[in-house]
């Protein structure tokens, strides 16, 4: 087994790291404070091909691997977690399900747009009464001639306020429960669609997290993905895949926190010596590094399984997300601790990492949900 990155992967890592440091880091604090969606960042990333890495070249993407995407998402999230998740959602939660489950017409129409971020994608599954239990969703769709008519709403949708293309899940047959759920591609200008409330979240504040509203929304029947009733399968498979990127995002935040801690602990002195010379501080740094490495390897493993075309990877993806989000929370909590009083102020980035990290433990499936997924796979 070779645990090192190959030369192409190393190239991507170096390129994205440099870009992130020069272009994303300087504006990260401001977008967190204002909550403003970072279109400037997105345009720059689109130019570098970072918004459609896993989309095949024939659709205008980079034709790259999930491992490469994980590397890029980590490097971006290391300086700006909000930007990191926008990149991830556009690819694994929007472009990827179209690639995997869409028909040729849908792929031709939407993938090039998403790959170049001419419009952004978002994933509309969660509802007010359907979070951890997505099968309980209430949005419904009824076929009427050439269109489906959708009614309902979605909540907490990352990119929701700024996206142009939405993968939306609605019930086409309530009697069948989760087997009656269908997936649709919805464009922002379809009649009856609107963006509702913008959530003011504790962390990942610049991700246009919004409510989506469907009031007799007319969706052309060509925009059904796969067959009616396949929606739940599409949703679960897509979420499994996105857990890899979310894991990469968490690893990135943790890495950023650890690097900041290493640097600060060498500079800050108490009782005449730099604090990195104290065993308690060394213990924290070692613990951070170990957990981050373990999480990163789990992320790479799940990504490599995807790249190898392995169909059953949900256990490994859940393990990656779970481990990475917990390693992230540990690292940022200790990072703020190492910075002491300074770390509690907005003068230092670790304060923002702390708030962003907590979101990682909760969204895309709380740790409890990840463990249920893992347990189900173990017991199957």
């Amino acid at each position, binding site marked *: 087994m070779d645990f090192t990155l190959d030369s192409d992967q190393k190239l991507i890592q170096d390129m994205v790291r440099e870009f992130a440091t020069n272009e994303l880091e300087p504006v990260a604090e401001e977008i967190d404070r204002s909550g403003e969606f970072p279109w400037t960042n997105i345009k720059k990333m689109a130019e570098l091909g970072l918004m459609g890495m896993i989309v095949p070249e024939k659709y205008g993407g980079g034709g790259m691997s999930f491992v490469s995407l994980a590397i890029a998402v980590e490097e971006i999230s290391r300086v700006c977690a909000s930007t990191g998740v926008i990149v991830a959602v556009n690819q694994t939660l929007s472009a990827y399900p179209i690639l995997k489950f869409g028909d040729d017409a849908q792929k031709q129409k939407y993938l090039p747009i998403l790959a170049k971020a001419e419009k952004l994608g978002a994933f509309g599954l969660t509802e007010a009464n359907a979070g951890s239990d997505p099968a309980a969703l209430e949005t419904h769709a009824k076929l009427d001639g050439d269109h489906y008519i959708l009614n309902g709403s979605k909540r907490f949708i990352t990119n929701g306020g700024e996206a142009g293309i939405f993968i939306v899940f609605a019930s086409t047959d309530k009697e069948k429960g989760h087997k009656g759920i269908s997936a649709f591609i919805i464009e922002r200008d379809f009649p009856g669609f609107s963006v509702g409330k913008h959530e003011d979240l504790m962390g990942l504040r610049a991700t246009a997290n919004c409510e989506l509203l469907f009031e007799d929304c007319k969706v052309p029947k060509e925009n059904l993905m796969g067959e009616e009733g396949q929606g739940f399968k599409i949703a679960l498979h897509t979420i499994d895949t996105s857990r890899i990127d979310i894991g990469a995002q968490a690893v990135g935040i943790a890495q950023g926190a650890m690097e900041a801690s290493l640097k600060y602990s060498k500079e800050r002195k108490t009782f005449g010596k730099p604090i990195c010379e104290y065993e308690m501080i060394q213990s924290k740094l070692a613990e951070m590094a170990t957990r981050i490495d373990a999480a990163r390897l789990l992320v790479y493993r799940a990504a490599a399984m995807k790249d190898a075309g392995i169909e059953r990877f949900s256990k490994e993806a859940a393990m990656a997300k779970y481990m990475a989000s917990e390693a992230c929370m540990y690292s940022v909590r200790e990072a703020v601790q190492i910075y002491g*009083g300074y770390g*509690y102020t907005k003068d230092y980035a670790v304060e923002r990492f*702390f*708030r962003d990290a907590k979101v990682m433990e909760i969204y895309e499936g709380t740790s409890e949900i990840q463990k249920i997924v893992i347990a189900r796979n173990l017991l199957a």
Partner: protein
Amino acid sequence: MEENRLISALSDEEHERFRRKVIAFVEEHVRPQAKELELKETFPRDIIREMGKHRWMGIPIPEKYGGAGLDNLSYVIAVEEFSRASGSVGITLAAHTSLVVWPIYTHGSEVQKQKYLPTLSSGEHIGSFGLTENNAGSDAGATETMAVYDNGHYIINGNKRFITNGTYADTIIFTASHDRSKRVHGISAFIVEKGTPGFNPVRKEDKMGLRASDTAELLFEDCRIPKENLVGEENDGFKVFMETLDGGRISIGALALGEAQGALDAAIRYVQEHDLKKSQTVQKTIADMTMDVSAARHMIYHAARLKDKKLTVSLEGAVAKCFASEASMRVSSMAMDLMGMEGLTNRYPAEQFFRDAKLNEIGEGTSEIQRIVIARQVLGR
């Protein structure tokens, strides 16, 4: 407000009667505006004035000095109940009482006690404790603020950072060095009053949480203070502030306890509203939070009881503070996990408690310093 708090055998009926009075006050004057105070970063001056009418800005101080004449456990209960609704109000009360009112009472001259305690206890004046500096946090003995004696006055130069209540304080106890080479043995404690020429709060910190609590930088530029403002003896400052911090730890523990209880309250409410009590994962989470709150409460009350018996609390205070602060992080974190995405919004107080709670592990002695204090108490230096 439901009483689902775990009772402690360490408090008497008298203490519980006092608690109910505090809760009634909190429900009327604090809880309705807690969220708005945070969003607007408004210093809770009006609340302090109302508290002052009950002498609650001097709870453990004898009535003859304007205090409420109650004990330390009552004071801890007050901090707990205020913090349960607003960490900002809790820490404002705690810093004012433990770090200013109490040291003036225990180390001040009779003249200083008569002069400062009544107005501090009534909330007419607010207190601040200026110990921390840019280069003197955990290493408090590395104080760089200097005091030079000159003909009946001390001339003070330097600055203090992260000082709770600093912008609004009328009465500030602070430390300064006469001779840095002597480190802790060259430090004195002084009182400076707001408006003294050469003394100014200059900067308000932009914090992760506790945003209605004021945290300031204080600047001394050739500030002349009369020698009568020395607290205790010259070069005795270290003793003054170490004893002050010993007690202050208990109040931060109470702050942490209150926040943890508030997070648990919110989590229980959420579970009931969403009918989740049959989920085993939810049961485990609530049980873990309950155990943490219970343990923290017992440790804090125990330390307060020891203080009321006039015993030293160097060990028990550190144990209680370290445990309670880490518990407040765990409990507020679990509350957020339980509430999912909703918990990340400010519709529930969970994310507020989470951001507030992080300070508990850092302020008034980091958890790392607490562990060193504990180890030294147990093992000897």
